[in-house]
Every structure is written in structure tokens, then in C-alpha cells.
């Protein structure tokens, strides 16, 4: 046990998957974790995963909490959101309702994280993710509409496909970078120190 501990990188980035039921949160997670696409749909309750990844040359751990889209109790959802550092807010481009629901999720996250949405410098690491991009023929949410919303929120918008693995790594890595820079800012505010890592921030590692 103690050996394992020693090998583990100290930095852990906590990512939370949010979004309505059936938009592909688990599919994205599993694709990222194990490079596999799960066709069978089984509603998630709340699963967590941890993986060692190399982020811009630095070994870190990503802790993914895959939440239930169907969770009915706001109080319980609050508890999930509190434990996260960054959020992948997922909707399905083939389902307008899931896109509408992202607004509620964002609101709840901001409320739980106690962040004023108007202040951009105090924002939370957050990515708007339009999943199921491979199903272009069934698209219900135009790219423009999604982008408009992401601009309004001042967050990036990325379209992914858990099936084809398009942009899957990108969303996770982008979010981790956001988290990392946020953490760095916080420590800078705390101790006034500048770290070297900051410079290598915007390097892309997507294959």
C-alpha cells in the first residue's frame, strides 16, 4: 500500500460529468478510461474513476465522477457537485431537451460552487460538450446555437463523439488544463509564487 502511494502523482484533478440522462456521459468516460465504446445503455447512479495521465509532460491523476442524469434529489446532486473541481456539461446534439437542460445544470453548479456567473475571473473550469457528433443526420442542436450559449457563458464549446472517439481526450485534457491553471492562480494568490509550469500551459497533446 505504501509503495503504491509513493508512486502515485500528488496532483489530482477532479472532473465531474453532468448532463441529462442518456446523453453519453458514461460513454465518454469509458472511452476516455478504457478506449472502448459501450453500446448498451444502463443508467448510471454515480460512478467514480481514477486514472494516471500525462498532462503536458507532467504526471497527474484524473478523478472522474460520472453522475446520474436521472438523479432526482437536488440535495444529493449538490453533494456531488461540491466534490468537483471542473465540469464537463454534456448534452446530445440529437436532443434539444438535453441542450436546454445544460442551463439548469450550469446554474446549479454555480450556485453550489458559490460563483457569481458575471465575474469572468472567478469562473469555474467548465466545458460545454455536444456529444454524439457522429449522428450528424439526427442533429437537433445547431452548432451556432451551442456556440452562442458557450460564448454567453464564456466557456469553450466542443463537439465530441464517444463512438468515434473524436475530441474525447481533448475535452478531458482541456478541462484538466483549466483546472490546473485555476489551481495555480489560487496558489499564486495565496503565496504570491509563480510556477514554471504555467508557461507550458497551452501545449496540445491530442493525437
Amino acid at each position, binding site marked *: *500500500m*505504501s509503495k*503504491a*502511494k509513493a508512486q*502515485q502523482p500528488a496532483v*489530482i484533478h477532479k472532473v465531474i460529468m453532468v448532463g441529462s440522462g442518456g446523453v453519453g456521459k458514461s460513454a465518454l468516460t469509458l472511452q476516455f*478510461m478504457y478506449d472502448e465504446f459501450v453500446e448498451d445503455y444502463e443508467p448510471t*447512479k*454515480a*460512478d*467514480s*474513476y*481514477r*486514472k*494516471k495521465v500525462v498532462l503536458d509532460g507532467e504526471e497527474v491523476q484524473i478523478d472522474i*465522477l*460520472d453522475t446520474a442524469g436521472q438523479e432526482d*434529489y437536488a*440535495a*444529493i*446532486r*449538490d*453533494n*456531488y457537485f*461540491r*466534490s468537483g473541481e471542473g465540469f464537463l456539461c454534456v448534452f446530445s446534439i440529437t436532443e434539444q431537451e438535453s441542450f436546454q437542460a445544460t442551463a439548469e445544470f450550469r446554474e446549479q453548479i454555480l450556485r453550489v460552487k458559490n460563483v457569481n456567473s458575471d465575474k469572468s475571473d472567478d469562473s469555474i473550469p467548465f466545458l460545454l460538450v455536444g456529444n454524439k457528433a457522429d449522428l450528424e443526420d439526427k442533429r437537433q442542436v445547431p452548432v451556432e446555437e451551442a456556440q452562442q450559449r458557450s460564448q454567453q457563458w464564456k466557456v469553450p464549446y466542443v463537439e465530441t463523439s464517444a463512438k468515434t472517439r473524436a475530441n474525447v481526450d481533448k475535452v478531458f485534457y482541456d478541462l484538466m488544463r483549466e483546472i490546473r491553471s485555476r489551481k495555480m492562480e489560487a496558489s499564486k494568490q495565496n503565496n504570491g509564487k509563480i510556477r514554471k509550469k504555467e508557461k507550458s500551459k497551452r501545449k496540445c497533446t491530442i493525437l
Partner: protein
Amino acid sequence: MEGRVEHGLARVLSKQDFDPDHFVSKQTEGGEDQLLDMKQKIQILSDETAHALKHNVYKNYSQFIETAKEISILEGEMYQLSHILTEEKSLMSSMMEMSLVSDKAIVEQPKEQTQENPEEDTRKNLAFLLEKVEGCSSVTEVPGRHLIHNGDLAELDAESFTQIQKVHAFLLNDSLMIATWLPNRRGPVRYRFQGLYELDSLAIVNVRDAGPIKNAFKILMFPDAKMYQADGAKAKRHWLDILEETKKAKASRDKQKKEAAILLAEQQAHTPEEERKSFPIEDDSETMVAIETDCLNADWIQELPEDLDMCIAQRDFEGAVDLVEKVNEYLKDCPKVPVVKEFRSRIDNRIKQLTEGLMGELQVSPERSLRGGPRAARRAVTQLIRLGKSAQACDLFLKNRSAIIKYNIKSVKFEGATTLYIRRLCDVFFPCLSETGKEFTKAFQDHYGCMSAFVVWAKEELEMCVNTFNRHVFGGKSTLTVISECVQTARQHCDEQLCSIGFDVSFVFEDTITPELERVVQENRDQMIEGIKYRGNDDKWRKMNHLKEKECSRFLEEMMSVGLDLKPYVESDCFVALTMNTAQFAKICMTMTKDLLTLHTLELSPLITDTITEVFKAQLLHFEDSLKNPDFKTEHKFILKNAKYVLETLMKKVEEQFKTRSISFPKQLVSVSGKYKKLESLSKSSGS
């Protein structure tokens, strides 16, 4: 020689009161030579001593090594022993889990019980908590709260996944309680209360993949995020499922409540906060211990719960009840402080176990032999009464006896002859009943309330038995003789066995059999009258001819056996001066009278009289018809002779039977007997 001197020197030197000054001054007296000599001796001695010392050190050293080896072996053995013990423990816990997880039926059974008896179950559950967890008394005081699941978990650090401590989690119906495991703790208290989390806002995360850590799950409860590790995949699955289920159950309960009253719902929203405030006072128990009154400090009081456990385990029920009485007496005078209450509930829990054990003793189970008499149950019954559970004791005791009676009756085999069977049945049943009665009065001496239970029970048992009786006696085609014998046997038993213990149930018996008896008597009467009419048609009014003297005497013997003497009617060795019809009637009449009188009771008396009268009247009618019949004009004298025999001689015999049983001879029969005169006059009028 030299050696001896040295020995002498060694002795001198090692003397207790050796005075070096004196020794040296004495040695110096002798001059140089002696001194040199002395020096040499001392040299030798010193060498020898050094050698011996070396030798001894070596010897001790080897002994030391040996001891060390022994110790290490012992240590190894201890280690093995502890290993075996832990293995055993894990085996047992996994077995328990298996039965919980894989066997749905077992899981559901306790639930049913909960519904049946929620109050008692709750108390038991909470007492179990008090027993094991230090400082959780405030948790157990919430009414309606009960335990759903509990198990050992390891608490992990949510970041590094290293184990922090061992905990035991208790899932209650509305919250999750975590208790820290206390190492090196003996006695029943194994855990210390750590926290109580309302299920309402408890977020559970299934840790699917956490690298090397398996079977973990997280519980997010702001501001805490805790990670726990279960013993195995099954245990974890079970935890997640049962947490989910319980949460849902609670949510639906809450929803119902909310629908019922919005006000109530508001209150509920407040409770979690209040409770959270009140619970994390971990030092609660400490302060409680501090203010613990002297009354619980006595050694025997402290050890009492364990002593009770031991007594129960050893089935020393008397000892256990003694202890319970002692502690009850003691606690009566104690102030009602929380500690005492807690202690009280611990004892109550034990008492419940004890009661269960005792009840188990009395329980009728197929694998237990029922051979033991009522005395076998006395021990358990006495102890239960002492515990104040006389009603249960009474109930179980009687149930036990019922089972024994049933078993005994079953073992009585039906082998053709009804009389024999009934006699055996009565031999089994009635002594059983009276034995129970005797034992009951002994066991429940001062519990008069229980007596009524016994009476009700006895009546039920008797009814059951009489049902069997009726089925066998009246169900088949038994003759009146058999029936009357059976009834007589049963009556005798009723009187002898039960009246001897002051318990008369014969009226119940009579009540149950009377309708059947009446039916049988009436049927018999109708049959006989039919028979009389039938035989009357064939009657040719001839004397009986037995052809041979031997046959004749055999006939006479046959008649004698029912109490009739026909010798005076014998003519010329083989003739009997009566018709066959008359003789048969006489014989049947005697048997019937005997049977009916055996059955005689005051209630049946009119029926019996009627029956005999009717039968005689039927025969009388036959005589009358024959006298009126012109075919038998020449036979009038013989007819009258027969009639006289039937109405006077036979009637006398019947009367005798009544008298021997000291039953008054009914008037109806007297009047039938007087009808002979009428026959004579009828003969005259028709003959002329």
C-alpha cells in the same frame, strides 16, 4: 593432595565470614617460602576459577540460545494461531454475507417480522447498537428508527487511497451511522460513535476504478467526502444496493408525509441540521461515564451482561433467571439517569434472548422428541414464569402438550376391532389430559388466570379426541353392542381420570356424542321392528325342532348366554315348545336391552324406554295378527303360550336388567306386559 589443599583454600576464601586482614597477617607469619607457596596456590586457584567461569558463561550462553529458540518457536505458533483465528473470522463473516446477499428469501423474512412486530424489533435493534457502540445513545432514542444493515468497512483517504482506520457502518432506516473501530478493546463495546448522516442528502459514489483499490465506494456528505472499502465485491454491491433501497424507501416515506402536511415537511427539513449539531459531540460518552452514579460501579453489575450471556450460552437458565431477578431488584432503587437506562436496555435485550431460549425449549419442532413427559417442560415453564412471562409459558406449555397428545394418538394403530382401538385411544388420551392437568396446577400454582386457559385447552383437546371417537364408533357399521362398549369405556375414563383432579368434562363428551347416539338408537329400533315384521310374515307357529338332543342343548346354551332359561320348554329332548321367531326375538331383545341400558343416561332415558316399548309392541302386534288370522285357528293355545313367554317371562328378565343397573322400570313396559290379558280375550272371541 594438592587439589585438596586448593579446595581447602577455596573453602577458606569463600567462607562467609572471611576476614582478609586476618588471613594475610596469618600467611605473612610463615616467611617467604610459605608466601611463595601461597602465591602459587592462589595462582592455580585463580586459573581454575577463570576456567570455571568461562565454562559457566558458555553453558549459560547455550541455555540462553536455547531459550531464545523456544521463544521464537512459541512466537511462530502464536502467529499461526492468530492467523487461523482471522481466517476463521473472515470465513464466518463471508458466510454471513453470503446468506444475506445470495439468499433473497432470508433477507425478506426479517422484513416481514418487522412488519408484524415493529416495536419489538426496533427495540432489539437499538439495544444491539447500544451494546456495541460507545456514545450512540442519542441515536437510539429516535422512535421508529431501526437497523437495516451493518458491516465492517475500512475508511480510506479519498485522495491517496491509504487506509485511515477501520470502521463499522450501521445503516438505519433514516440515516447512516459510522462508528470507529476501537482496537484492543475487550467486552461488548467495540466501536466509538463517529458520525450520523441523514440519508436525505447522502450522495453515494460507486468507485468503479481506483487503480489498486478494489471494492471501494464514496459517501459525499458536505463537507465530508469519505471513502470506504468493503471486504469483497459482494459486500460492496450489497452496501450500494441497500443504501439505494433505503434511500428510496425513506424518500417515499417522506413524500407521503409531505403530502399529508406541508408544515410537517418544513419541520423535517430542519431536523437534519439540528441533528447534525447535536450528534458530533463525541465526548458524550465520556461525560456520561464521568457522571455515572455509583450504583453501576459494582463489579458484578459491570460483568452482569457477560455473565448473562454465558448462562444463556450454557443453557443454565436457572442461573440466568437468578441474575435477572437480582439485577431487577438492584435497579429498582437506582435513579433513572441515562446510563442506568442504557444499562437497563442492555439487560432487557438479554432477557429477551433468554426468553427466546426458554421458549425454544418449549417449542414443538419436528426434530425434537416428544417422549418427555410434562415434567420435562416444567423447568422452562418455571423460569418463564419467574421472568413474568406466564401467559407465553402457559400457551407454549399447552401447545407442547397438544403436540404430545397428537403424537400419542397417532401412534395408536387402528387394527380392525373398534372396541380395542377405542380402549387404547382412551388409555392414551385421558391419562395424558389428567397428567397435563396435574402438572399444570403444579407449574402455574399461583397463576389462576392461566387456569382458564387450561380449561379452554382441555375442552378443545377433548373435542378433537371425541371427533376421532365419533369417526371410528359411529362412522362405520358398528353394532349397538360395540358402540355401547366404546361409549362405556370413554365414560369411565372421563369419570375416573379427570374427576380425580377435580376436572369434570364428561358433559362435553356427552354433548358431543348424544346426537350420534340418538341416531344410532333410532336406526336400530327401526331395523328391529322391520325384522319383527319380516319374521312375523314367515311365522308358521311350529315348535322348534332341533332333531338331535345335542343340537337342542347347544341352542339352550346359546339362550342361556343372554340370560334366558328355556329348559322348561323342552319337550322330548329335541323339541322346544316355543317358535323360532319367539326365541330369536327374546334373544335380540335381551341383547338390545343390555346395550341400551349400558348407554343409559338421564337424557337418553325416554328414548331408551320408547325403543324397548316399540319393539315389544311390534311383537305384540304380530301375536294379535296371528290370533286374528283364521289360518292359525287351531294354534291359538300355542300362540298364547308364546305370547305369555314374551310378555311375562321375557319382560321379567328385562325388568331384572333395569333393576341390576338400579334404573326404575318404566311404566310403559308394565302396561305392555299387561296386554297378555287382552290377547287371551282376543283368542276367546275369535276362537268361538
